[in-house]
């Protein structure tokens, strides 16, 4: 048996009122890739924050044994000194600074007084090569894509002489291609003897890359699954550990839904970039969606999916939008106004629930009624009782887990936040719902519930457009699928005819054609 590099013994971490970690034990062998999986709020990130010293020694109980020694980390610098480097989920780069400046931020080269920029940039270039980036380290971070930014993060960790690298959701903002490249890079590092811990929601990636999988649930380690063998552990097996029961079907069946007439139709829809008006972000797209139908739009990040949806929603994105829009067969000229879109019974549920979707500092109640205050007010005065009743109604309908609708949205889990966001738009009583990445960053159980809500919407005769970059989800939930690449629709398939392979093939072919 290989040497144990890290052992976390009986870790208990309590926040006021909550026990986030309860007697957790966690062992990592030297030279392995160890995956940490669990639902949101299960305690994965808390555990890693304890390990890296973000929660300093003394604020938790238990021992950290690293490389045979009991360690007491008082801050990030302490753990980094021993080669424990954490790469956070949200990219921790300063966009205005160069790659080199970012890599050595807090870890500068040179004299105490003055930074030695020559050494900084030449060393940075060396590490960039190791992660397969050909960019110069003098390029500003804002000028490279997210995929490359993630690689910069890894180069930054290497520059700190990482021995144990912790990657928290490293692929959450990457497309499939970049994700695969990143995972292969991890396997390459493993060959060179690096030890890694990966936290991920994407179980196929975990199964692909990890040697050992530890499942965390409700602040405790539930089990450790061995994945050393050639036979990859199945996603269902991991899910079972995460939710504590078998999930035979990840996508609920939609039954008894009759698909009706075409409700929304757009033809030759072209949208230009607001800053670079010569650039077409959406290029000559035609699509339709019928009552009771769920239409999936699949595309890689940057394909123009969000931009398409937002341009339909009262031109909230883009300039110089051309093309025809019909609702219920009648041509519609929509103003550049979200309010006008809502009047036309269109709702756009954003992919960015924290940034654009919800007012985190306000209650569930306030958020639920925000897009349709007319319905609960008379002569511009809001009827508090009605507002409360509406929020309660949607809480029950969507199974939002909260003791009271007065709870601040910022205190909810990702899945429950997503439900509040859906509630807000459902209350606006739209006929057409554009859902942008409705399950991004939420856990398996909550995903299932969101899918059920989508099915209910279809059953109620709504026209649903679901944008997603998760292929299984698109395949499992849609009646019809549009495939988008580089601003264009490059394919349309019926769900029962589509497979992961056929969709990827369409994208690859269109890429070559361009």
């Amino acid at each position: 048996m290989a040497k144990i590099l890290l052992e976390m013994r009986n870790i208990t971490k309590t926040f006021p009122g909550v026990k986030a970690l309860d007697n957790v034990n966690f062992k990592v062998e030297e030279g392995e890739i160890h995956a940490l999986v669990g639902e949101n709020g299960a305690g994965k990130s808390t555990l890693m924050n304890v390990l890296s010293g973000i929660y300093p020694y003394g604020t938790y109980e238990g021992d950290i044994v690293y490389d045979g020694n009991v360690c007491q980390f008082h801050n990030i610098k302490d753990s980094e000194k021993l080669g424990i480097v954490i790469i956070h989920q949200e990219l921790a780069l300063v966009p205005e600074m160069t790659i080199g400046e970012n890599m050595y931020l807090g870890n500068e080269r040179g004299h105490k007084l003055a930074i030695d920029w020559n050494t900084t940039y030449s060393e940075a270039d060396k590490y960039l090569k190791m992660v397969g980036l050909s960019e110069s380290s003098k390029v500003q971070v804002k000028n490279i894509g997210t995929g490359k930014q993630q690689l910069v993060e890894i180069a930054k960790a290497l520059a700190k002489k990482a021995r144990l690298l912790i990657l928290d959701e490293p692929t959450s903002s990457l497309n499939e291609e970049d994700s695969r490249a990143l995972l292969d890079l991890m396997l390459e590092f493993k060959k060179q003897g690096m030890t890694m811990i990966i936290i991920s929601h994407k179980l196929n990636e975990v199964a692909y890359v990890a040697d050992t999988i530890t499942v965390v649930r409700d602040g405790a380690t539930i089990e450790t699954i061995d994945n050393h063998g050639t036979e990859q552990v199945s996603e269902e097996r991991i899910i079972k550990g995460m939710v504590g029961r078998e999930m035979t079907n990840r996508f609920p069946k939609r039954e008894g839904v009759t698909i009706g007439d075409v409700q929304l139709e757009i033809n030759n829809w072209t949208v230009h970039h607001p800053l670079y008006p010569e650039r077409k972000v959406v290029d000559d797209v035609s699509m339709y969606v019928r009552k009771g139908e769920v239409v999936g739009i699949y595309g890689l990040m940057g394909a123009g999916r969000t931009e398409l949806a937002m341009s339909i929603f009262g031109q909230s994105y883009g300039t110089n939008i051309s093309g025809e829009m019909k609702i219920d067969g009648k041509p519609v000229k929509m103003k550049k106004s979200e309010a006008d879109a809502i009047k036309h019974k269109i709702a756009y549920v954003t992919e960015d629930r924290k940034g654009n979707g919800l007012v985190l500092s306000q209650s569930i109640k306030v958020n639920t009624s925000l897009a349709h205050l007319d319905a609960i007010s008379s002569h511009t005065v809001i009827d508090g009782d009605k507002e409360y009743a509406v929020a309660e109604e949607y809480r029950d309908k969507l199974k939002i887990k909260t003791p009271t609708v007065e709870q601040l949205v910022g205190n909810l889990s990702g899945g429950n936040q997503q439900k509040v966001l859906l509630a807000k738009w459902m209350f606006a009583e739209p006929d057409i719902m554009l859902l942008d990445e409705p399950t991004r960053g939420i856990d398996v159980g909550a995903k299932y519930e969101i899918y059920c809500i989508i099915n209910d919407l279809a059953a109620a005769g709504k026209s649903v457009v679901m944008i997603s970059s998760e292929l299984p989800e698109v395949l499992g939930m849609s009646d019809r699928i549009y495939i988008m690449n580089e601003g264009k629709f490059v394919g349309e398939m019926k769900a029962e005819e589509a497979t992961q392979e056929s969709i990827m093939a369409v994208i690859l072919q269109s890429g070559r054609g361009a």
Partner: protein
Amino acid sequence: MEATKTQESFVSKLIKVITRNPIVFLLLIAAIVVGCLVENFFSWANLTNLLSNTAIRFLIALGVSGCLITKGTDLSAGRQVGFAAVVAGIMCQRGDYNGRLWKFLPEMNIGLVFVIVVLVGLFWGLINGLIVSKLHVPPFIATLGTQTIIYGISLVISDAQPIGGFQKIYTTLINGRIGNVRGFHLPYLLFVAAVFGLVFWFIYNKMRFGKYMYAIGGNDIAAEVSGVNTTRTLIRIYTTAGIMYAVAGYLLAAKSGGASASMGQGYELEAIAGCTIGGVSTTGGIGTVPGILIGVLVFELLKIILQFLGVNPYYNYVVQGLVIVLAVALDIRKYIAKK
């Protein structure tokens, strides 16, 4: 084909530079027009005047720039300048001057006074820094509060009286200048400004402290997880700012030949305006020392243009206010476009 392409890109580059700094170019054009219309605008004496006015404003702007780059602000800048001027003025009064405020003091060495004034500035800056970083009070409110406190104390110690009767060495040294080419002199103040400009350039480009400042302004969470001590950096920024205001106040009292508590009123806005015109972004993380210099210079140029045009001085405030709003509006537009 290739040639026209590069030509085009040169023109478009030029347009880009102009559209990014519209105020700078508008005012330069205005200066040229005024210079052609009004006599004596293009004179060496006027240039001397412009440069020595700019020198002190530049020091204040350097001070406040760190606060702006970290998405903060410092509304106490002007009052701190006034406070430093009052303290310097009181301590630099002649021993035999009848109206001495603090009669118990002996005639003081002006070098020693400088050190004391700087320490006082450091103190106020430290207070601001602690309130902002430790108590997490938004800088706007924090410094709005401290500026009132500082003004109050200024009034108390100066007895709300104008202070005069400075030692000769104090005023002559600060107002000293070298050379005389047809009315053009190099005031000592200019050298002081140049030295501080270089020091700040070094801090902002070569030192960890400077890089941490940009990092906090660009993405404070990134700075934090990279192991940057953001609390300490913020305290240092506000403290450095306080020192700069103190230096400016010390020089200003001597330059004017008198001091009072109301001195420096509104300088914070001029400094913030200068920084913004010079490309320091109010959304954080962006700003350079040469940019700040250009911004302050252009703002002083605006004042002189108005003066030469014979505009009623009361209208100056109106125009200056408009320019400040315009500068920030343009800066924010860049930010909105980026989103």
